[in-house]
């Protein structure tokens, strides 16, 4: 179950398949940090695992409604683990701007805002 969760979170953050070592590291980190979840947080996690396309929305909604939610904590943990891997380091290091960097930034910002607004509605509906 945790390996599926790791793969879903990894693909969401990196846009590619997570390597096995990072998957195992994620599982170990969850054990060490004893990241428990409330029943509602567990339901949110189950929802995004079964419907990965929803993660960006729920994540965006939670940044506004409940930043320290267990799902957010697990996403930040996965970010930390993948950032500390040479396989994905370049995805976390500064990038040099290309000719369309402003467009790329604007697209990301608009998408993030949309995810946040729509995500708040989804999060509010899930009891």
């Amino acid at each position, binding site marked *: 179950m945790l390996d599926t969760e790791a793969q879903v979170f990894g693909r*969401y*953050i990196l*846009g590619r398949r997570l390597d096995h070592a990072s998957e195992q*590291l994620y599982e170990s*980190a969850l054990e*060490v*940090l004893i*990241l428990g979840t409330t029943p509602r947080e567990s339901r949110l996690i189950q929802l995004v695992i079964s419907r990965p396309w929803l*993660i*960006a*929305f729920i*994540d*965006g909604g939670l*940044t*506004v409604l409940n930043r*320290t939610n267990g799902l*957010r*904590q697990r*996403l*930040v*943990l996965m*970010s*930390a*683990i993948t*950032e*500390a*891997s*040479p396989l994905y*380091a*370049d*995805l*976390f*290091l*500064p*990038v*040099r*701007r290309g000719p369309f*960097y402003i467009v*790329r*930034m604007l697209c*990301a*910002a608009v*998408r*993030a*805002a949309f*995810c*946040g607004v729509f*995500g708040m509605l989804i999060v509010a509906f899930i009891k």
Partner: protein
Amino acid sequence: MNAEFLVVGSGPSGVIAAEALVNSGKSVLLLDGGSRGPVGGATDATKAFVELRRTDTEQQRYLLGEQFESVALETVTTGAQLTPARRFITKHVDTFLPLRSETFQALESLAAGGLGSGWGLGSCVFSVDELKAARLPVSEMHKAYKIVAERIGICASDDDARPYTWAHIDNVQPPPPLDPAAAQIYKRYIGMRERMHRRGMRMGRPALALLTGEHDGRPGSTLREMEFYEDDGSAWRPWLVLDQLVAKRNFTYRGGFVVLRFAESSDHVEVTALDIATAKLHNFRCRTLVLAASALGTARIVLRSVNPRQRVPVLCNPYSYIPMLVPQQLGKAKPSRGISLSQLAFFDDESAESMPDIGMAFVYSYRSLMLFRLLREAPINVRDARLLLQYLMPALLVVGIHHPESASSEKYAMMEADATSPTRDRLFVSYSLTTEETMRVRRRNRKYAAAFRALGAWPIKTIEMPAGASIHYAGTLPFGNGEPLTLSRDGRLAGSRRVFVADGSGFTYLPAKGLTLSLMANAYRTAQGLCRISTQ
């Protein structure tokens, strides 16, 4: 008799005092908690931070920690910024230095090197007015600053910051290269220098206790940006002195002890310490006791020994920080070598008629810290935040603002019983700023934000940190005129003949400037005074 002098604490004050005594031929015993951190060799020394990130398969160990201790996911407290390599600084502290407070988040240390093991290396001299306000002797401190600066090695630049940082100190090394975002705002500052001066604002390179060339057998920095993760000898750390002292015949080092109290008799001082490993009490005997356990640690020892029920004042610089963007640096390439330490020092001098009032801001780039810390705080989803921050990182600066601090009845510490603690007590700290002080802090924060806007940096948000977050503590046993729980000018504890304090406990005013260089200068002059007394 274990030694002529017993020094408690191996932080910057402790080692400088101990070294001065040892060099004068005195026999010295030094006690501390003794935790040590890794020294060099943790990474490939030929590679800088970014190269290591792309190649080192073991980086998780020093970036996140073996137990993921750097991945703070919930409340961020004082000390959360410590990287795994620096976590040893707070080892055993919760157990052996218990502290209760609703209003004060202290960071203390029992490590070899004390809090100096994590010092940001910013070095400043106090002005004449600041020295007078702190009741420190001006000429003695000026002399001590020079000697200590020569001992530790400082890099600095002869610019507008000099009067506030290295003033009359000679023989500094050239500064390291400047981060491009910081260089841009500095260039703008030079262009509008007169206007800034009229506002009382002065900017320059900070003086840092970092070598850029060889000094006293230590190497210059190779600019790997690994200052937060490992020590290579270019950054001054107290353990450098401690390791040299250990080789001397008239010096004895005993790590692994928490000093609890002392009892003074006509010809000696009996010191009781708790062995951290066995929890057994040990007694040590000396002719003269020199306390340098930091302002809070020394207060614990003195209060237990003299009067646990009495309150002592606490000084701590209020601290705020402002993340900001330099838009022109968005998506710009960064040089592969540099330093992660402070890039610029920005002073707000509102002193008037002998009344010092100087704020200090350190400007940091976000060069060698992990992005996930920002992802956690970003107001948008993690995936898009990562994409945006990749462009934003080269343009990101973090400004830490320190405010000067005076004593008041609302800031105090006292001991209270605690049966669960191995020391059977704990320190209670109550700390609150007056309305006037809070207004002053906020006004100065706004002034800094406006100045940075004028220099082309966009402040994102001003964050006022909880009291204690500056990790600058002083003033618990203020210099006075013989009242109980005060110090004489030579550091002697009132009512005592053989107990001296060599740390910042005596300061009656805490300038906003980093205090470590002044702590060391004060420790040096205190030790010199002791040498003179014991020779007479």
